[in-house]
């Protein structure tokens, strides 16, 4: 029974991290920037929603405002920092260090404003328990997380394959040089990509803390799991990233049967090492 409960919890967290992985893969596949500061955007979304809920805003409005703020922050980072560095043909390492610096700045501003302690959301409906089968129970928050995440995944698939902007993004991702010639203006598309991905990452950024609470430095571990899922899924595949995030979180949750919870980071990392050794190009790479 415990295994079944852990399985269900794994699906919930996995779906949320799947969206983090999808959003990160969107950025990485297009801009080729390993956007470490994405963890900061993720964390900021949760804090803004928390503040707005504290001021009595209704939940959907708080979520929308938080998403708008994340979008603004993401596009600011891309337009002001990354684009400028790329214009000066900075090396990969330089951009990476700048991104890490941005993460440190965001995290510590949050820590200075909200203190480094764990903050809990105060929503009466969120802890309402629903029985699924037998003894397996999920809170309303967890069900919302699954619903929103799967919906977001479907939305991203639709956006990437059916809309003109989505097609442009995929064009820039697959061949930036050709895109430049055909007047797609990769620079501008890059800003759109980061803006879109930042809005997307705000969803798990708000939903996951509803369950686990908020911490200013809490974004790094989810992002690490998400990037491992992205790499294991083959980097460019949206479905790959989403599915692998669920698989990895599942494995992590089931490992709780044998290994205490504080070592779960070790389990995640072990999965990554296995992938590096046996399938460094990822599972879904061959499909493309």
């Amino acid at each position, binding site marked *: 029974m415990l295994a079944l409960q852990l399985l269900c919890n794994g699906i919930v967290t996995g779906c949320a991290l799947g969206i983090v992985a999808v959003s990160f893969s969107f950025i990485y596949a297009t801009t080729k920037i*390993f956007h470490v500061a994405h963890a900061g955007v993720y964390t900021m979304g949760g804090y803004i929603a928390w503040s707005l809920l504290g001021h009595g805003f209704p939940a959907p409005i708080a979520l929308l405002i938080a998403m708008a703020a994340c979008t603004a922050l993401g596009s600011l980072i891309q337009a002001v920092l990354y684009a400028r560095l790329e214009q000066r043909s900075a090396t990969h390492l*330089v951009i990476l260090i*700048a991104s890490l610096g941005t993460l440190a700045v965001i995290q510590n501003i949050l820590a200075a404003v909200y203190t480094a302690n764990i903050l809990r959301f105060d929503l009466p409906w969120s802890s309402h328990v629903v029985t699924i089968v037998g003894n397996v129970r999920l809170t309303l928050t967890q069900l919302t997380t699954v619903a929103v995440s799967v919906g977001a995944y479907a939305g991203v698939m639709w956006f990437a394959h059916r809309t003109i902007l989505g097609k442009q993004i995929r064009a820039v991702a697959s061949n930036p040089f050709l895109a430049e010639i055909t007047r797609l203006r990769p620079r501008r598309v890059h800003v759109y990509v980061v803006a879109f991905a930042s809005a997307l990452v705000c969803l798990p950024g708000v939903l996951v803390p509803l369950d686990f609470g908020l911490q200013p430095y809490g974004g*790094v571990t989810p992002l690490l799991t998400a990037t491992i899922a992205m790499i294991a899924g083959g980097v460019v595949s949206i479905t790959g990233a989403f599915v692998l995030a669920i698989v990895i979180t599942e494995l992590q949750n089931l490992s709780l049967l044998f290994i205490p919870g*504080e070592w779960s980071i070790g389990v995640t990392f072990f999965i990554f090492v296995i992938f590096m050794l046996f399938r460094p190009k990822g599972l879904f790479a061959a499909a493309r």
Partner: protein
Amino acid sequence: MDFWFSYITLASIYVLLGLSTNLLVGIAGIFSVSQAAVFGVGAYIVAYFLMNDVLSFLPALMIAAIGCIGLNILVTLPALRVSGDYFVVTSFGIQLLATAVFTNWTGGTGGANGLPGIPPPDLFGKALESSSDLALLCAGGMLIGCLLFWLVMRAPFGRLLRAIREDEVAVAAAGKSVLRAKVSAAALAGAFAGTAGGLYATFLSFIDPSSFDLDSSILLLTMVVVGGARTLAGSIIGPFLLLALPQILTLVDIPTTIAATARQLIYGLLLIAFMLFRPQGLAGEKL
């Protein structure tokens, strides 16, 4: 006077760490946020041997250095086989994993409470207890480290490393093993970090996981970035400047509760500003 001694001791230790980070990030071009983890492993190894009275200081330091060489090779080898970006994941992973081990392995590391009462270092049977002796010891260690770094960078091996930074493909085409050179650089970086860890443990006589977390890794990276990548001068200037920062901050009126946060915030801003306006740092070469 004691303040100056402890400043010099700490700065010497961080110069060793700066050299280590510089070898990895500046010279081998491997992004790393896990040097603090290696530093911590060195510190815990020396603490273990000295507290249980198994070995004296120098052999313990040697074992810590060798252990960290092994650790650094182990973590760089698989990631170097694939792509540079994957090393970011490895590096974050190692750092978070190390923090988990330091915090949760209560039997070996004392957990979150840390290990108090590490005995002072001894040299040839004589215990070094006064702060001036410690400062001399650490400054000596720093000088040896700097000399080693300078010699290595002058040697054919150093030129090979420079060549790899210029053009990896050309080096490979000339029949040199890029992978082996990078792993050797990482090994040397491990030796520096392990030694620094041992000195740190005996200097403070108390270690806990918070000295070896992600924030400390970011501090090490900031030191190299501010001082300047790929040069000896850069690895010395960075630590000396950044360790003075907490003292400067005490002059500004910041509530003590957010002092650590303010420091980290400044490190982040420094990283961004230097990358934007002066990627070579104060006294370095092009990163």
